[in-house]
């Protein structure tokens, strides 16, 4: 089966004002099958937001895609013209940004913002566009559709704004939605509501989803496969069930270990120190590529070889892979 999205050896760098360039993503490769939900797990500095922006070629002015290919529905997005990209964005491939409170225009009514997306891609008459927008709103909001449609973003709650972003994303019937931490600023109950909404919508509209987050617990029971990123590289990839319950890369293992213990395990760990990943979070460095493993300074299982070369992705079985020298033999 041809993958819906095929990213090959993607390399993105940013150039600071001083002229120094730093690599945000290096050698990132993965494939997404139609109907699949891929969870991208990464903390600050992992390059996850850069990945989301790069997929749509919406990097800021000082960002550059240096190498690689992004095949979406058979077309290489890196060779597409700006006109073609404008057509694809929002119509075939939709992006939901972080911070719902900031991603909506403050002075335009919500229904109109959704209608604008539809009007940009479909050549419906104005009335048809409005009706379509109402239908989309009804799919996303259980009640009070008209009132919410007429509201401005500041009159809605955080969860409602997140739903509006989702409505905008699905309005033209895309095949892939990339969601960059859309629930990060919401409280857990609303987060669960949004996740449930996503589950319902992806089934109804047969969507493929890339869900980017820093919280591994959100991917449990939601993602089919998980991609773990650290310092702009993919360190582990595999089915969600195996990556989250039996991770093979030292970073993933350490990350999952440092979560507060599940309360079923009892009070034994109460107020005890959590096993943390030592050292500070990775800050991008303009080092030559391939000279060392990026996680090595903080790794508990580091070896000499880790300072000499960068590890390749090693397939542990047909679906699960980790880029770590300890699996080389």
């Amino acid at each position, binding site marked *: 089966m041809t993958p819906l999205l095929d990213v090959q050896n993607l390399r993105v760098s940013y150039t600071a004002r001083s002229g120094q360039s730093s690599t945000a993503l290096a050698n990132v490769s993965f494939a997404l099958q139609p109907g699949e939900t891929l969870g991208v797990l990464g*903390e*600050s*500095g992992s390059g996850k937001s850069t990945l989301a922006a790069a997929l749509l070629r919406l990097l800021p002015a000082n960002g550059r895609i240096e190498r690689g290919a992004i095949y979406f529905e058979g077309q290489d997005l890196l060779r597409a013209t700006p006109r073609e990209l404008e057509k694809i964005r929002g119509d075939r491939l939709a992006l939901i940004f972080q911070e719902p409170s900031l991603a909506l225009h403050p002075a335009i009514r919500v229904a109109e913002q959704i209608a604008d997306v539809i009007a940009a891609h479909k050549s419906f008459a104005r009335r048809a566009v409005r009706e379509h927008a109402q239908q989309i709103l009804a799919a996303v909001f259980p009640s009070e559709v008209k009132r919410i449609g007429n509201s401005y973003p500041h009159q809605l*709650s*955080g969860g409602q704004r997140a739903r509006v972003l989702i409505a905008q994303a699905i309005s033209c019937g895309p095949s892939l939605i990339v969601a960059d931490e859309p629930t990060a600023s919401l*409280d*857990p*109950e*609303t*987060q*669960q509501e949004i996740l*449930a909404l996503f*589950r319902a919508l992806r089934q109804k509209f047969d969507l493929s989803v890339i869900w980017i987050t*820093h*919280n*591994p*617990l*959100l991917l*449990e*029971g939601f993602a089919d496969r998980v991609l773990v990123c650290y310092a702009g590289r993919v360190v582990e990839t595999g089915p969600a069930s195996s990556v989250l319950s039996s991770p093979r890369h030292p970073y993933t293992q*350490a*990350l999952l270990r*440092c*979560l*507060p*213990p*599940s*309360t*079923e395990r009892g*009070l034994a*760990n*109460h*107020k*005890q*120190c*959590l*096993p*943390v*990943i030592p050292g*500070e*979070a990775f*800050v991008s460095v303009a080092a030559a590529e391939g000279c060392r493993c990026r996680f090595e300074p903080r790794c508990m299982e580091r070896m000499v070889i880790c300072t000499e070369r960068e590890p390749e992705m090693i397939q542990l079985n047909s679906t699960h892979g980790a880029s770590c020298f300890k699996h080389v033999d």
Partner: protein
Amino acid sequence: MEPLLRAENVAKRFESGGAFGSRQEVRALAGVTFSIFPRTTLAVVGPSGSGKSTLALCLACLEPVSSGRIWFARTEVTALDAEGQRAIRPSIQMVFQDPASSLNPRMSALELVSEPLNIHKRFDKPERRDRACDLLQRVGLPREKAAHRPDEFSGGQRQRIAIARALALEPKLLILDEALSALDCSVQAQMANLLIDLQASLGLTYVFITHDLAMAAHLADEIAVMERGQMVEMGAAWSVVNAPQHAVTRRLLLAAPGVCHSALEPQAV
């Protein structure tokens, strides 16, 4: 043992409305009563809009209460005048959620931490600098970075600066209003360890306001659940999480990722 902080029927109303329009009243807190004992951690959880942040502001004397009384170490805080409140303030300090907006971006880490000492005129100038350096080291920041500005630090490091600043005046009570919520998971773990360590070595008392029930269960001795301005349940962390009494608590536990309770196991979709 005497409670360090005691609140009795604390209520807070916000009024909005101009001279011409009708007044709208928002009841942020409606009669909250509880006590906190020294060297313990109280976690305050609840859905959005339940009044957690308002409670934090009232306890920190940053907002006057509309009615009710608060005692701090035998002094009735709500009965104090401005001068008296100023004297109490060093003992109750607050750490906010977003370090990017709670730290002045134009001041260096050292200046930020010595600012409270300057304002309250504690110690003489050279000693203030030394104390600030000590505090930065205490929270795990490298000495070489003391002169850097907040934007040169990571999110976790900025929160460390905020905590160091809060500790400058040697408070007894530290109110953390979602202080860990904006941080990555691994950084949250580091900060949790720091807080536990500081509590043990400095004898601090924490009021920890959070959405994250798993972290609350890990860090807190007691958990208070709020809804619509009222405290609907309060008890030992362990019993609140494993034997919740109130419907709101059950709802929060169900929604919280990472908190498993066999009786409340959500249906897999």
